[in-house]
């Protein structure tokens, strides 16, 4: 299995003003030491609540945003020390799909133009074959050629998201980053788009980084899952393993909530200095959790790559 993307110890911080009326700044660690690898043709699901750093991670992986530190290696190229020209070439191989199809498509471009633009920009096919390529894409995303002369405002949310997906596929990318691609769609439409993702994955063998707050959606599409909390990975492993056999209390809580349980009133998610970031909300926390942050570990036998950042995951502290 060849590795297509590997991210190691990625960090990205933002400076924000402490309050609207003060010049004092504080640093927010949006992504705090995240590492993972994705094999070719596999899908990695990233789950977490808002503010957990999922989208920052997506933007860093796409190199739309420069990480403060850490390496991103894509198809053997380290993105950090690549020059602009080469990065442009690599961009052809990596594409992103955003959450909101209402704002990610140019309202003044017809669907044909929207889909043809990346084809021409990256010289995917010769000029005279652009129309063929666009029609091929339309077929993949399940839209008829009637849509070619339409503007985004004439289409529904699901259709627009199909176009956004189609646009990402025009350059035959090796990696697609999908940042909450179904969250803004209706339930019946969500299922259609997810099925479309399944088709693309099977047919084109595309590697995907699939980001969502909905564990149900992520589990459905992903081979591997990482769970993020406050910029850190708290649990990672095989999709079914993580879902059926969660180790971290945070993952357990997320699964309980989607399975139909009620989360009791949890503590405030206050700041922690040095300790486990989940400590203030955790139901099972011990003294050790406040003192130092746990590392990602699979226990003594490595647990088949299913790892968690929790002192209690493997009964280390009882």
């Amino acid at each position: 299995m060849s590795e297509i993307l590997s991210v190691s110890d990625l960090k990205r911080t933002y400076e924000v003003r402490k309050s609207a009326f003060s010049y004092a700044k504080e640093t927010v660690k949006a992504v705090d030491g995240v590492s993972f690898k994705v094999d070719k043709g596999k899908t990695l699901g990233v789950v977490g609540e808002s503010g957990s750093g999922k989208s920052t991670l997506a933007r860093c992986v796409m190199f739309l945003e420069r990480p403060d530190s850490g390496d991103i290696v894509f198809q053997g190229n380290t993105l950090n020390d690549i020059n602009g020209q080469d990065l442009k070439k690599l961009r052809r191989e990596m594409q992103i799909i955003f959450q909101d199809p209402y704002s990610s498509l140019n309202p003044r471009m017809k669907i044909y133009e929207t889909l043809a633009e990346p084809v021409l920009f990256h010289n995917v096919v010769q000029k005279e074959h652009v129309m063929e390529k666009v029609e091929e894409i339309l077929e993949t995303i399940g839209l008829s050629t009637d849509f070619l002369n339409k503007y985004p405002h004439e289409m529904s949310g699901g259709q627009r998201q199909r176009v956004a997906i189609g646009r990402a596929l025009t350059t035959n990318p090796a990696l697609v980053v999908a940042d909450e691609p179904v969250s803004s769609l209706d339930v019946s439409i969500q299922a259609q788009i997810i099925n479309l993702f399944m088709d693309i994955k099977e047919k084109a063998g595309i590697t995907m980084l699939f980001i969502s707050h909905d564990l149900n959606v992520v589990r459905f599409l992903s081979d591997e899952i990482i769970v993020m909390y406050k910029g850190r990975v708290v649990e990672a492993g095989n999709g079914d393993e993580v879902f059926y056999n969660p180790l971290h209390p945070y993952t357990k809580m997320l699964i309980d909530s989607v399975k139909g349980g009620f989360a009791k009133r949890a503590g405030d998610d206050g700041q922690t200095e040095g300790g486990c970031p989940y400590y203030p909300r955790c139901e099972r926390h011990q003294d050790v959790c406040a003192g130092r942050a746990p590392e990602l570990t699979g226990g003594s036998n490595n647990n088949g790559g299913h790892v968690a950042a929790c002192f209690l995951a493997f009964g280390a502290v009882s």
Partner: protein
Amino acid sequence: MNEPAIRVTGLSTSFKTDSYIVRAVEGVSFDIMKGRIFGLVGESGCGKTMTSLSIMRLVPSPGKITDGQIIFEDKDLVQLSGTEMESVRGNRIGMVFQEPMTALNPVIRIGEQISETIMIHKHIQMNEAKERSIDLLKQVGFDEPEKRYTQYPHQLSGGQRQRILIAIAISCNPSLIIADEPTTALDVATESQILFLLKELVRRFNTSMLFITHNLHIVKKLCDTVNIMYAGRMFEQSPVEDFFKEPLHPYSKGLLNSVFGFGATEKRLTAIPGFVPKLSEIPEGCKFHPRCASVMPICKEKEPSMREMGEGKSVRCFLYE
């Protein structure tokens, strides 16, 4: 117990402009029993929010309630004057909206926003209202209610703000709470806490609740009845257990199959083809027929009516006629 808190019959709301009429709600009827949570489910544009706005008589212009009755506490809300309606809204019917970020006034302290409602409806003095507000803050799960009373909305998180809105909604002991997608803007964990709080409050005060959502998982864990709306019409009404065991309408079946954890067990979802129709261009006959898997010739010509299918169950589909 078996008395309806509110009875809606044949409610129709439409938006009329010079060039066209959009029928947002068309002949919707239902009862919400006392102490029960009524789940109104549908996709965007199906008329669920317009139904709730009609009940509160807050339909934005040029929309109008064109037909129907809303019987609430022996009064027909459709016939009430604006002033009479003011004494119902926020007092007898509490409301919780979707966006906790925008529903509160950012420059007024939280406590004053709660007290304001109580003072207006219960005609009491500030200090008395303050006492009551602090008690309400405690009821909705704040540890330091006195401190919260003097804070501003921006000092609170989304979930905390939604708690404040719930406190305002229950401040006058309403007999009906309308919650319109109250957790859509919140994280999973926070959502779960808010739902728990709502369920507890309904039980504690024996109020009724109209809960609007598009999320079937929430309906399953929170509501007593499921009511499916599509293109402004009621498609299916059913007690929650029956619905998840055996949905009747092809649309309900489709919805369940599109959601993970209900129908979708294999590695593929059974999606409903097509898309949610715009209310300005809904099809002839049964409004669902272009997307329906069990469509028959009659569905294209006539619209089925709501048919009783046993205790508390009814469905609008020719398959059951």
